[in-house]
């Protein structure tokens, strides 16, 4: 079961809950499970978020695999200047 840490913006959709555990093979399934559990979250908002899987931040993580003990963080996407 991956431990999933929600971003602050997402917490209004989960009633303040900030950590959930989800069993999912990939981020794609994980996100759908989240939306199914918390209908106030919507798929569109995930476009604005990056996902850190075990410390490595990905902008387009949909099909990246998750380990059973992965730590997953949703964080705002960052662009840079140089």
């Amino acid at each position, binding site marked *: 079961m991956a431990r999933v*840490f929600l*971003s602050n913006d997402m917490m209004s959709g989960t009633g303040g809950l900030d950590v959930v555990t989800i069993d999912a093979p990939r981020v794609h399934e994980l996100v759908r499970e989240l939306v199914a559990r918390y209908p106030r979250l919507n798929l569109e908002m995930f*476009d*604005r978020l*990056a996902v850190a899987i075990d*410390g490595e931040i990905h902008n387009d993580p949909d099909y990246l695999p998750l380990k059973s003990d992965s*730590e997953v963080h949703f964080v705002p996407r*960052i662009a*840079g200047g*140089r």
Partner: protein
Amino acid sequence: MSTRHHFEYVGTRPIRHDGVDKVTGRAAFGADFSLPGMLYGAVVRSPHAHARIVSIDTSAAEAVPGVKAIVTGRDIPKTNKKVWLGGEGALDLGDMGDNALAHEKVLYDGHAIAAVAASTLEAAREAARLVRIEYDVLEPAMTLERALAADAPILHPEMTTGGKPIPGATGPTNIAARMEIKRGDVDAGFAEADVIVEHEFRTPMVHQGYIEPHATVARVGADGRIIVWTTTQGPFLVRDACAGILHLDAANVRVVPSEIGGGFGGKIPVYLEPLAIVLSQKSGRPVKMVMDRSDVFRATGPTSGCHIVMKMGAKRDGTLVAASASMWYEAGAYKGSPYGAAAMCALACYNVPNFFVEAYDVVVNKPKVAAYRAPGSPMSTLATESLMDELARRLEMDPIELRLKNAVATGDHAPYGPKYGPIGLRQVLEAVREHPHWSAPLGPNQGRGVACGFWFNGGMNSSATVSLDSDGSATVVTGNPDIGGTRAAQAMMVSEELGIPVERVRPVVGDTDTAGYTDLSAGSRVCYATGMAVIRAAEDVREQLRLRAAKIWKIEPDQVVWEGGQARSLVAGDDKQPLSVSAIAATLAKTGGPIVGRASLNAPMAGPAFAAHICDLELDRETGCSKIVRYTAIQDAGKAVHPSYVEGQMQGGAAQGIGWALNEEYIFNAKGTMENPGFLDYRMPVASDLPMIDTVIVEVANPSHPYGVRGVGEVPIVPPLAAVANAMRSVTGIRFGQMPMSPPRVLAETTTRREEPAVAMSS
């Protein structure tokens, strides 16, 4: 991923491939491109900071001899498309299009309203002057205070606050978004603190200050195919943005990047490109448009001015226990300041068990901000590192000791959530302590400051091809304009993988039709992410070479290994001489034809970069004039591929930060007009303002990259504001929260404000 430790080419300092063209004047930058039969464009810009456009009359302009086409907002229906390239909602194409050409309202001094193409530049300018615009002038919101006031002039009546809702907020607002990040229990944390420091910080809007103005040539062919030659950090973004804004099929748009004369984030958005395309569509002729310097200042994307209130608490032994911050960042005329990154960077250097940070994205009647080197971080870091300096003084602790005590290390959680992988902040801080600068004596009227800085470093999409020629030389093509020597680094990577001399590798910046899709030259990502694609493409070539060797030797492929830049046979008792790249290359036609290696990837964000800078400042107490007398920049680069260009990034970022700290600022008058849109009064540092900038490259390998590379380009601008402010604190006894620390401000503060309880630095 395993990281290499032995290198033949990486870490050396070859002469860059584009160097000779650049020292002899042959390199072609944006404005150097011309086409036969070309028209010249000129832009009509708003003299008002906030006004409704009542009418536009182009009849007099059309009558000017030589005028061939005029474009106004009416020609381009507003789009609602978005491109989530950079995140933070920064790339809303509707906003970008409205910024390129105003539709209903002008939102800042310099906002483009119309553009003219004519057979001479003079005719185009004359016609632009004759475009008659009737305005309904509105009160501008020029400051955060005014923009946030209950009766503030509203820029976008339809705008609502995104992100984390503001409790109790209703009605029209200038707050485009809000975010929070938090950990633990802040009140309990502060209750535990033995020392609490709090201060307010303000920084003005500042510009990247690249020396090359924006320049574009667009040509629309009779078949509808569009080619845009332009100076940009992202040709693919220009293609997609122009297509989106102008309702075109991106498949018909080709963007060819010129050499780029500096960007620092400012050459990511499109400004002239859509106008030039429409003018070319209307006239049937190529159209060239070049900004002048005042256009660049008034109407491109500087970075946010901001207001930050921050508080930090520590135990007597220096352990941080709590921090809180509220920050308001100016987005300019449209949503999308770097408020999110600012909030996430503020505490990224330290383990703080309890914190609450909130950040607001606020629209004001100033140019829409663009990225500027580590966007958002220099300002919020000014706050954190100033308070760390105050804490060190209150605690009578060495500032490096205090930082080391709280510094994040591998496995610690970043304030924005995830755990850090291998990072180098501690090594950087130890390098500061060991550097002779840190213990050097100071002269009279001199003060020393130190500050740390953090930046994420980007990843994203990159493609590369490596083509091997029969003479054993190679061409590497990527889609990243080369801002600071990345071509040389890419060639070195090919050399490293194939064992051929750097001079025998030709690095080429492709265009959108000749290179595979590649994201921006931004986010400190080129050497890291595109570099990774280059390495993979070279590995692909190497694998093909190995197979050719097997074919030549008529043995099984698994009997051939690649070692020391050569193919070797593993067949026992075999006396075959190893085959070099050039030996195999000479047989290409006979062994199966040309070899092209390719790779494309979507890289995760590079390992975070940490830096620390030491600044010695000398103050003329009678005039408030200060001079930086010694400066040292120390940074974890992961692995420096071409150390000279890594040092160059560190020195350049430091110089920009020093300018920001001491003299640079946008000055607006009461009407909202920019008063200093030129290099004379927008005071960037000149050669005689700066000392040599010493550099130390720390190398803590980034495990996400085969060589351990981290991005290097952005973090150098993060520490300087605080390093200079801390040096100023040390010499004046006064904490400056407001930038720039220009002579009039320094003299006013030092003559009117009481010194704060000053404790001498222990070094």
